[in-house]
């Protein structure tokens, strides 16, 4: 089959070449034959023409001589007078076209018919005329300068006008003669001469005239005729022979024909360019050849065109079909997630690749077409995509497959493919067909199934752990409560034991409560129901609260608790203070909890750069040098129910929910939380949150007015600089010293100079001279007028008495805030007016004499609340559900109740509905009586729901009397101030 095809490929062009060669050879042979034939015919034609010319010329000569003879006879016979001769000649001249008539004497002298006399030079012909009595033809150049031809014939001697003559003659102008020899057969391009046998030209047919003196001389000078041939020509002419020759004159081939005229020595000579001579024949030849060539070319062109058209049609059909198939395959491949590749097995060049490679792997189609090895870039795990040797090892018609994980080059998406390589032969060409079959969905499904399985296992395990932990954690306080309750009943008569049991029951209750709160929080967060209660809050206040809560815990464990503020964070922020508090308490209490006694805990607050001044990005860092966490536990520290199991942690109470709650709250607030920890080296938690900064308040002026100059003393220069930075906007001139002695010196020096400080802020614990000692010495020097404050992050209650004795006016918690300074200083400046001291006492009696309506379905809770309110000097009436509360209030006298405490979840009518009902009553106090929710639902949305129902505040259960007093004071105060009752505010919590 192969040999046949190869032979078939060769035979066609071979036959075509042979055919062309045969045609060419035939053409050349034909051309040569035609050329030779044409030349022969041309020369024959030339000879024929000039035979005819010669005969015509001879007839012309004979005619003239005949005329001369006849005229001589006429003159001799008639002897006409000159006038008659003139008339006769004139008529003959007009008829025959000669230029003049002559009576000749001696072949030289002449007289014309008109009587003009002259001479003419007939050359050698004169002898023929005069001596031999022959008619002659000769050239002459008369005075006019124009050449003429003279025909003369002997005549009977006679006399004309007294002129004795013996011959008569006529003359023709050269041009007139030439016309008789002109040969039209050669388009006027043939030169025809009548020459003497020596070559001198008698006349020429050249248009315009003759410029040839001697044509033989001209041939000698201008042609390529050899001297021998010229000599032969001369001989021919001398001997009256004809001849034909070819020569080249001025690069043009001429055919020269000569033959004797038959009179005297005259030769008729013609010179015709060969191109002219053969023009007619050549044109036939050319036409014939052209026709043949054209026919051949047309046939050839037709064959080629047919072949080309056939080839193109087939090619077009093939291409079209191929395009259809490719297009269909492209479309097909675009609709599937499998990639198809065809490689040439010889060079591994890509013959085809489905265009979906760009979509599925992010590889540009062109790149893949250029080099299939581009796939290697996508293969994860450094896999070589079917190594070449492995590819070539696949047997023909065999296949091989392998699984790959690829990464999409644009999106980074991972996809899994099964690559199957088929080695096959297509049209005798070996190819590799590669199919990359997408297994991503299967893979992902498997992964998800595995993850789900793992998650289920983990959850199950976590819940088992949780239940186990909860069982233990709940049972522990419950055991204490139950146990101490039994003991309380037993030892009810021993007040000391009762107090001791009561204290332990309370502690266990609080622990149990925190457990419950955490579980509920987590449950709430996980169910996605947690939302933020965003409001403006004071950062210093937050820190103060944190200090109040956490400082005693740290103190109990003799830990150093430092609060450090870096930079100048805004004091007022907008955010969910409650959740922030929760986050920070979780972190800080854990730090305290998991740091051994005497350890160190740092709480660092720093402001990070924020893109706009409307937002503040705050980083809270809690660092301890406690027990730390293992690397494994760090990975799940934020997972719920996760507690590291160790001998230490086992002794510490916890639900394992704190960090999970914290993480979720941070996420909820759009922040980030990170942790770094190492076992035995402590932990560092970092929380970064972004808060809105409320519009700037009026510039602080009070401080500038009261304390134009302030001295700060702290052994940490950073703190001094921080305070100076924080005070920059107040207009207060801040100086600082980094030890107690320097502070004393600066204060004394300033006092003595008359520009003393208006307030002095001393760190408590400074190396060398501490704050108290420094205050004492300053007081000794400058007296008691200047307030001296002690800045401390420690609980100062132990040293308060000594400090006051030393002259210290007040304590300020670290970190330093301007607002804290102002709050600290204000009483000192207002104490002088005697107004501040009375406020605390009033606050303590805020509940006294008030009458509360309490809606509480839980009898025990209602009883406790009634007792607690009674302890504060307040009266209390109980409604067991919301409906009863509404009815009681409706039936009460105006202003009878000062406030309503409303449980939310109650039978018959819940607290929200009851509040709405009360607010809708016609009762005079319905709109004004303060109503506060009492609920275990302490989330922000619970507060919002309470307020939306018409309540004025929110108290979380279990009831904290301090919170009750604060809320009561606020609501009652608002009511009194407004005169028309409290308004719905977001106040009170």
């Amino acid at each position, binding site marked *: 089959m192969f040999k046949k095809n190869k032979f078939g490929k060769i035979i066609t062009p071979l036959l075509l070449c042979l055919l062309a060669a045969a045609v060419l050879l035939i053409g050349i042979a034909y051309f040569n034959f035609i050329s030779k034939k044409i030349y022969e015919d041309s020369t024959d034609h030339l000879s024929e023409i000039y035979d005819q010319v010669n005969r015509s010329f001879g007839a012309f000569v004979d005619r003239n001589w005949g005329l001369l003879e006849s005229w001589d006879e006429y003159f001799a016979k008639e002897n006409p007078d000159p006038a008659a001769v003139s008339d006769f000649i004139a008529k003959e001249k007009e008829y025959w076209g000669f230029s003049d008539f002559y009576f000749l004497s001696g072949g030289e002298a002449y007289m014309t018919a008109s009587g003009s006399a002259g001479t003419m030079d007939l050359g050698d012909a004169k002898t023929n005329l005069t001596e031999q009595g022959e008619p002659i033809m000769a050239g002459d150049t008369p005075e006019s300068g124009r050449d003429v031809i003279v025909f003369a014939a002997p005549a009977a001697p006679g006399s004309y006008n007294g002129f004795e003559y013996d011959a008569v003659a006529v003359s023709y102008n050269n041009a007139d003669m030439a016309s008789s020899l002109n040969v039209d057969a050669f388009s006027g391009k043939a030169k025809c001469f009548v020459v003497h046998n020596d*070559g001198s030209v008698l006349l020429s047919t050249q248009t*315009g*005239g*003759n*410029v040839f*003196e001697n044509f033989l*001389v*001209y041939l000698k000078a201008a042609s390529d005729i050899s001297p021998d041939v010229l000599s032969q020509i001369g001989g021919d002419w001398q001997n009256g022979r004809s001849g034909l020759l070819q020569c080249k004159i001025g690069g043009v081939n001429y055919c020269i024909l000569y033959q004797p005229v038959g009179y005297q020595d005259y030769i008729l000579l013609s010179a015709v360019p060969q191109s002219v001579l053969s023009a007619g024949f050549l044109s036939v030849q050319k036409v014939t050849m052209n026709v043949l060539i054209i026919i051949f070319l047309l046939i050839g062109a037709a064959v080629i065109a047919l072949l080309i058209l056939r080839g193109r049609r087939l090619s077009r059909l093939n291409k079209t079909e191929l395009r259809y198939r490719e297009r269909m395959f492209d479309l097909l491949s675009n609709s599937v997630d499998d990639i198809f590749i065809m490689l040439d097995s010889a060079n591994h060049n890509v013959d085809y690749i489905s265009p979906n490679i760009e979509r599925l792997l992010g590889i540009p189609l062109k790149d893949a077409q250029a080099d299939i090895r581009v796939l290697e870039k996508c293969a994860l795990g450094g896999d070589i995509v079917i190594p070449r040797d492995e590819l070539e090892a696949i047997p023909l018609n065999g296949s091989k497959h392998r699984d790959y994980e690829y990464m999409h080059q644009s999106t980074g998406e991972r996809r899994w493919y099964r690559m199957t390589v088929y080695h096959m032969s297509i049209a005798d060409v070996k190819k590799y067909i590669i199919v990359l079959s997408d297994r991503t969905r299967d893979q992902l499904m498997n992964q998800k199934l595995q993850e789900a399985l793992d998650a289920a296992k983990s959850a199950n395990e976590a819940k088992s752990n949780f239940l186990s932990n909860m069982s233990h954690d709940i049972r522990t306080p419950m055991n204490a409560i139950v146990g101490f309750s039994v003991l309380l009943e037993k030892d009810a008569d021993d007040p000391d034991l009762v107090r001791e049991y009561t204290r332990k029951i309370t502690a266990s209750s609080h622990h149990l409560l925190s457990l419950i709160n955490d579980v509920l929080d987590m449950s709430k967060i996980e169910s996605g129901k947690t939302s933020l209660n965003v409001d403006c809050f004071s950062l210093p206040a937050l820190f103060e609260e944190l200090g109040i809560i956490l400082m005693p815990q740290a103190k109990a464990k003799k830990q150093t608790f430092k609060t450090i503020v870096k930079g100048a964070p805004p004091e007022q922020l907008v955010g969910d203070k409650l959740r922030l508090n929760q986050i920070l308490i979780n972190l800080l209490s854990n730090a305290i909890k998991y740091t051994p006694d005497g350890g160190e805990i740092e709480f660092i607050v720093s402001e990070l750069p924020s893109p706009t001044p409307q937002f503040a990005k705050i980083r809270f860092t809690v660092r301890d040098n406690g027990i730390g966490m293992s690397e494994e536990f760090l990975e799940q520290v934020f997972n719920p129910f996760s507690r590291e199991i160790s001998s230490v942690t086992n002794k510490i109470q916890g639900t394992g929910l704190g960090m999970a709650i914290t993480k979720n709250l941070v996420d909820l607030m759009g922040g980030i939380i990170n942790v770094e920890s190492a076992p035995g080296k402590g932990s560092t938690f970092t929380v970064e949150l972004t808060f809105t900064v409320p519009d700037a308040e009026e510039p602080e002026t009070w401080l500038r007015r009261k304390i134009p100059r302030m001295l700060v003393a702290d052994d940490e220069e950073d703190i001094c600089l921080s305070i100076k930075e924080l005070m920059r906007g107040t207009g207060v001139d801040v100086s600082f010293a980094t030890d107690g002695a320097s502070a004393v010196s600066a204060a004394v020096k300033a006092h003595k100079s008359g520009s003393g400080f208006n307030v002095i802020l001393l760190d408590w614990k400074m190396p060398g001279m501490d704050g108290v000692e420094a205050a004492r010495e300053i007081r000794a020097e400058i007296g008691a007028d200047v307030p001296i404050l002690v800045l401390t992050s420690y609980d100062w209650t132990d040293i308060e008495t000594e400090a006051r004795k030393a002259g210290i006016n007040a304590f300020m918690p670290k970190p330093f805030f301007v607002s804290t300074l102002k709050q600290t200083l204000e009483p000192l400046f207002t104490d002088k007016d005697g107004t501040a001291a009375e406020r605390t006492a009033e606050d303590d009696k805020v509940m006294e004499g008030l009458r509360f309506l309490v809606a509480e379905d839980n009898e025990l809770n209602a009883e406790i609340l009634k007792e607690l309110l009674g302890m504060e000097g307040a009266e209390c009436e109980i409604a067991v559900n919301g409906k009863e509360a509404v009815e009681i209030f409706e039936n009460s006298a105006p202003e009878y109740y000062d406030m309503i405490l409303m449980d939310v979840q109650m039978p018959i009518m819940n607290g929200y509905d009851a509040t709405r009902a009360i607010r809708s009553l016609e009762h005079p106090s319905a709109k004004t009586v303060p109503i506060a929710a009492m609920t275990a639902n302490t989330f922000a949305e619970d507060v919002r729901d309470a307020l939306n129902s018409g309540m004025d505040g929110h108290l979380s259960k279990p009831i904290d009397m301090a919170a009750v007093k604060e809320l009561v004071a606020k609501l009652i105060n608002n009511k009194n101030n407004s005169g028309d009752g409290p308004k719905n505010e977001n106040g009170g919590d």
Partner: protein
Amino acid sequence: MKFFKKKCLILLLAAAAAVLMTSCSGLAPDKNSDKVTLSVMGKESDLNKSYMTKIFDLYEKSTGNKLDIMSFEDSEYETTAVRKFAKGDVPDIFLHFHNADLNRFNVADNFCFLNDEKWVDDLTDGAEAYCRDKDGNLLGLPFWENSVSGCYYNKTILDGLGLKPATNQAEFDVLCQVLADTGYTPICWPADGCSWMAQFGLDPIFADDPALLERLNKNEVSYADIPEVNNMVNWISNAADKGWFGADYLETGWSEISPAIASGEAVMTFIWDTWFDTDFEPGGKYSKDDFAVMPVFMNTADSGTYEGGNLNMMMVNKNSENLEASLDFLDFCADPENYNKAFDGISTVNCFKGQTTNIQSKPVIDAAASIAANERVSTAASRINGYSADDVAAALHDMLSGKTDARGCIKRMDEYRITEAQNQVSDEF
């Protein structure tokens, strides 16, 4: 010895006294003498011609009058002379060719017409015709080398080829073609800067038809309207196309004529006879004796044409105080005895019938009959208002170099001519 010294001393004193007396007589001319000094203005090269200096010397010696020769550099002559005339500084005798530039000098107001001078009959026809203006007034005495311009051909080459000179335009064309076919350059046509060629063709048109010349000068017709001008330009174009001027004629200038002619590369050229005495450089294959003359054929005259010489004329200031002396000066120059002394041995065609001592060229003598039959006065260059041989040559060059065709060439010839005529403040333009 002592005697010898004394004798020498006496001789020296006598010589010194003689020199002193001579000098004194020069410094103090006789105030009562009627001798005059005539101012003669001309180009430096013209005035330095040997026959000019000879006639000036003869005059001064013979008459005792003086000639104040005012010669100017050739390139500055026209400008300087025009400026002097404008200031009224007109010389007694003014030398100028009878050409278009002469119009700048207000001939009618400044110069005498010399129609009645006694020497007029002694002038040859050609010379006399040259010096007359369009109204037939004789403007000056032609005192210059005369010449005959024609088609000077290499007779040796023609004889060697068995060819004879043409007697009419058709024969000339045949001759050119035969020469070209034979491998010769028929005509040396120096198209680069040689401006005289075309005027030979134009001469017959206007010399044979003075009325046509007058209409042309009155701007009633243009070259484009004249068939013969078209014939001439077309002939030049065709001749170039047929190779009759050879291959490099566009770069051929004055200095290339002699080598081309002397080497036999070119067979013919349109030139004047005295050129063979003044500018032909022997050393080539052929000498000046190999040349003969036939008429110029440029398709404007069937029998061809010769152009008579361009002659420097001596013109007389009609307003001069020395008018009589000036006319006497011309009479002196036109005296056969004097001019034969001046032109003794000079190669020139006769300006005066009585010229006998000059040398006439053999071609001219041999072609005397043809010249007599076909010579025309130099008409185009001297009679056509605004004619500039350079302008015509430039227009022809443009055509021959393919920048324009024959019609465009004639149009440019007209434009140049009219512009030049306007520059000459010709009333008709």
